[in-house]
């Protein structure tokens, strides 16, 4: 299982804080996971097709080309605005 988290405006728009995806035996990048999630509904498609989204794998900021594996924690979120 891949654990997937959403934060801030993205979490609100999707009305979802976290979900899981069974990717057993698959070699996927974060972008491919994002596309899988987007294909679930027109609503998710709309909010996940955002060039500005940032991505973290196992709590490290990475590019969307980063590979993910079962057991990983993958997070998508808008550009950060702390500080």
């Amino acid at each position: 299982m891949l654990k997937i988290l959403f934060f801030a405006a993205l979490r609100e728009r999707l009305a979802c804080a976290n979900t899981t995806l069974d990717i057993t035996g698959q070699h996927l990048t974060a972008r491919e996971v994002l596309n899988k999630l987007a294909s679930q509904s027109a609503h998710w498609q709309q909010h996940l097709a955002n060039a500005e989204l940032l991505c973290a794998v196992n709590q490290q900021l990475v590019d969307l080309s980063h590979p993910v594996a079962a057991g990983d924690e993958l997070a998508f979120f808008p550009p950060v605005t702390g500080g």
Partner: protein
Amino acid sequence: MTLRIQVQQQDFSVASEYELLRQDARCGAVVTFTGLVRELAEAELLGMTLEHYPGMTEQALTQIATEAQQRWQLGAVSIIHRIGTLLPNEQIVFVGVASAHRAAGFAAGEFIMDYLKNRAPFWKKEHTSSGEYWVAAKVSDQAALKRWE
């Protein structure tokens, strides 16, 4: 090279942090930065909520501070970031750096803030008299990273 990283709901004391930072007898300079909830130009700000990514925030801040300690000769470094609901003029973030000389302290303090603004997973939602809005990332914050490359 001590490092204190705190992500917390409760307020912090700049005075206490400063007292810790100034202990090192080899350090002749202490630079502190404090970020506060400031009023808006376009609407009355009632307060803000700070969301974060638990676990990742602490790691991101530790990485940023460690990178600063590799770039400059530093003594103690302290970073505090608050989460939850904050009222106008409340403290949001503290970065403190002790160093032998002032140039390293100023540079490291600004470096840490510039990276925190772009890399640490915090998000602000402003509550104003005309509604609630997620704060948009600023181009100037991205531009601020360029000079450290």
